[in-house]
């Protein structure tokens, strides 16, 4: 153990602990900016400087490991002067149009300014010296360099968590900036629109492209029937932006709030998640049959899940040679969209052109996905607007709803029923678990052999997980699988996905089925989720998701009555011709930069 003193309080900590963490153990707050618990230490903003007795310079608490006998002071005159200067310097290169900014009151720089830089501005405005162009080319987010303070959290996110490096630090000195490849528009580069950078940006330099006003316009338009769907991971995170602690489930209140906002039909993406399981599970079994029985080499295995639009764009850019391995299933959002303007319109006797389909997603890539040209199989744009969890919270506040005191209510019928299997789509491993619950039962006629249907090996925080299930006593139709061991793997965060993809590419993968989610933790850690999102928060959200699953009466997708009904009344059977037209899609090879 290392002994040191911080603000004259003695403490012993493990070697390698930073001064920042040691101070936190003593409940001494040292402000930070470039630091983020998900990312490597940068030590570049210098907001966390502290004074070490005897040292010539101040030291960055986030980057300095403790040493025996250190005498640290976090609030000396020298420290305060430096901190104030540093915050003032950042403000001088930041376009401070705070009252109009999307991140107003949710900006870490603003909070620091509030503590250290009130009163007269010291330094000269540097924003005017640069010719900043705001990049609005992505349908998912806006990059405004005039608000960038070069903390490089976004770059570290894109590199460390996502292995994409669609953005990098470019130039040096006064010209240093965060740039795509040669300043190309973000819509033209490898960016997957995952929004993890947006979630980690401390200012308004990277924000989601918001469609709140368009949604309000639709709601207020008497000729429109506005349908809203909510993704599984929204209900376990929305509360964070409305005053709840991470991990609080607010499903029922959220449904009530959506009705009060004026949505005409409040439906559930969990329904189409269950539908996805029927389609994707059937597709997997078909691929297995083709490979194992018919020897068809084109039935590419392993099959990859296709629910995560960030992951889809990643593979399109980085591993286009493996696009055949992707399930052709659309994501639950897009399945829902295609059905809202067909099946749902018929059932409700609505003109599909009058339906405005809105989805609430933990995701920014979903905004991009909804804009893909393939996503018009209803004859209309299947999903009109995608809002993030954060945007929904803003709407709730705008409408003056007293969220905490709302009576919980249920989703509407037809496409509002769900099962626990649909709910766990929101966590890494959830699609796999849901698929196994259904596929195993189709093949064997029995429930998966796990206590309470909880397939624990596919759950948890590990970057890459694997599991296998031995298939025994198959029903007659599936005798070819008798004794087979179904091997599956799961990756979340694109850095982990990339590791798994290399295994597959190099022929080292024993797997039949692979689930990949672009974001760390899966959708619960999505780029559209409340800020901050980090390991601690993601873990709490995970607990909430599995609790939601456990509390559901129905736990298996094929038991969902709305799913059973739609096959009976409309689609026929999984992977039918109509199902293929509405619920499946194709992919496009994209450039590698």
């Amino acid at each position, binding site marked *: 153990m290392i002994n040191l003193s911080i603000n004259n309080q003695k403490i012993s900590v493990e070697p390698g602990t930073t001064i920042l963490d040691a101070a936190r153990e003593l409940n001494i707050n040292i402000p930070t900016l470039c630091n983020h618990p998900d990312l490597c230490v940068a030590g570049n903003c210098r907001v966390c400087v502290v004074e070490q007795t005897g040292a010539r310079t101040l030291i960055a608490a986030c980057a300095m490991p403790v040493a025996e006998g250190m005498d640290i002071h976090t609030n000396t005159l020298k420290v305060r002067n430096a901190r104030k200067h540093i915050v003032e310097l950042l403000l001088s290169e930041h376009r401070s149009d705070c009252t109009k900014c999307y991140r107003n009151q949710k900006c870490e720089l603003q909070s620091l300014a509030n503590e250290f830089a009130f009163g007269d501005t010291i330094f000269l405005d540097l924003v005017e010296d640069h010719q900043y162009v705001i990049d609005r080319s992505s349908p998912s987010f806006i990059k405004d360099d005039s608000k960038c303070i070069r903390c490089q959290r976004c770059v570290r996110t894109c590199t460390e968590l996502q292995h*994409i*490096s*669609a953005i990098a630090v470019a130039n*040096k000195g006064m010209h240093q900036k965060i*740039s*795509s*490849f*040669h300043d190309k528009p973000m819509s033209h580069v*490898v960016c997957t629109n995952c929004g993890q950078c947006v979630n980690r940006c401390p200012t308004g330099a990277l924000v989601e492209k918001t469609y709140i006003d368009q949604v309000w316009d639709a709601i207020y338009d008497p000729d429109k029937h506005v349908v809203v769907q909510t993704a599984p991971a929204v209900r376990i995170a929305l509360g964070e932006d409305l005053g709840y602690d991470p991990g609080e489930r607010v499903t029922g209140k959220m449904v009530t709030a959506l009705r009060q906002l004026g949505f005409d039909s409040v439906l559930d993406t969990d329904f189409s998640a269950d539908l996805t399981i029927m389609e994707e599970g059937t597709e997997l079994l078909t691929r297995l049959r083709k490979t194992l029985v018919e020897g068809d080499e084109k039935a590419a295995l392993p099959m990859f899940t296709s629910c995560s639009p960030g992951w889809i764009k990643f593979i399109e850019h980085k591993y286009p040679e493996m696009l055949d391995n992707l399930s052709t299933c659309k994501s639950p959002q897009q399945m829902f969209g295609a059905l809202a303007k067909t099946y749902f319109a018929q059932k409700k006797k609505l003109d599909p052109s009058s339906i405005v389909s809105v989805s609430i997603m933990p995701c920014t890539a979903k905004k991009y996905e909804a804009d893909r040209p393939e996503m018009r199989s209803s004859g209309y744009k299947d999903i009109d607007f995608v809002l993030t969890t954060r945007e929904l919270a803003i709407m709730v506040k705008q409408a003056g709803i007293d969220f905490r005191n709302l009576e919980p209510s249920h989703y509407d019928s037809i496409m509002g029923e769900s099962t626990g299997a649909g709910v766990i789509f929101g966590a890494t491993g959830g699609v796999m678990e849901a698929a196994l619950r259904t596929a195993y039962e189709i093949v064997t006629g029995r429930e998966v052999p796990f206590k309470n249907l909880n397939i624990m090996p596919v759950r948890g925080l590990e970057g890459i997980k694997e599991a296998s299930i031995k298939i025994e006593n198959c029903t007659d139709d599936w005798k070819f699988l008798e004794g087979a061991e179904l091997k599956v793997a799961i990756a979340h965060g694109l850095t982990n996905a990339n590791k798994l993809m290399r295994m597959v590419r190099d022929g080292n993968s024993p797997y039949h089925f692979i689930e990949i989610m672009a974001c760390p933790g899966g959708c619960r850690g999505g780029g559209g989720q409340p800020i901050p999102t980090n390991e601690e928060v993601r873990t709490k959200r995970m607990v909430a998701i599995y609790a939601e699953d456990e509390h559901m009466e129905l736990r298996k997708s094929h038991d969902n009555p709305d799913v059973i009904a739609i096959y009976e009344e409309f689609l026929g059977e999984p992977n039918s011709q109509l199902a293929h037209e509405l619920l499946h899609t194709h992919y496009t090879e994209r450039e590698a930069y």
Partner: protein
Amino acid sequence: MYQLGNLVKELSEKHGKSRESLMPILQGVVDQHSYLSDEAMVEIANELDISAAEVYGTASFYTFLDTKERGRYVIRVCKTITCAMKGKNEILQTLEDMLKIKVGEMTVDRQFSLLESNCIGWCHKAPAMLINEIPYTELTPEKVVEIIKSYMQKK
């Protein structure tokens, strides 16, 4: 014109494909072509299995690894204090007049680019400039005219 051909492949065979090969490969392309085209950076990125933005980010950090088009001969006139004191402006003016371009520009025949540079280490023989890697020192307008003429004849 920019004919990249097999250059990147040849360089990666020579220097290897690990990250530490990036600088020598970038330098090798600039040696041949005076600058890094988008095509070259994408090919380097593919060859080293890193992102193109990373290649651009690294190249753009280094003044000599230009990502803007440059002429066959890149003239860099030192602008740091001693050269500035000893007549750098006159040298620049001479070059601008002779080449009919401003600092930062390239001649229409793509032969010359005119740039300023920070200290190149010839303060005792100021003013100084580099043409590609060759230093020219104790410059006078007359001397500059002669030097540029000799390059023009190299065409």
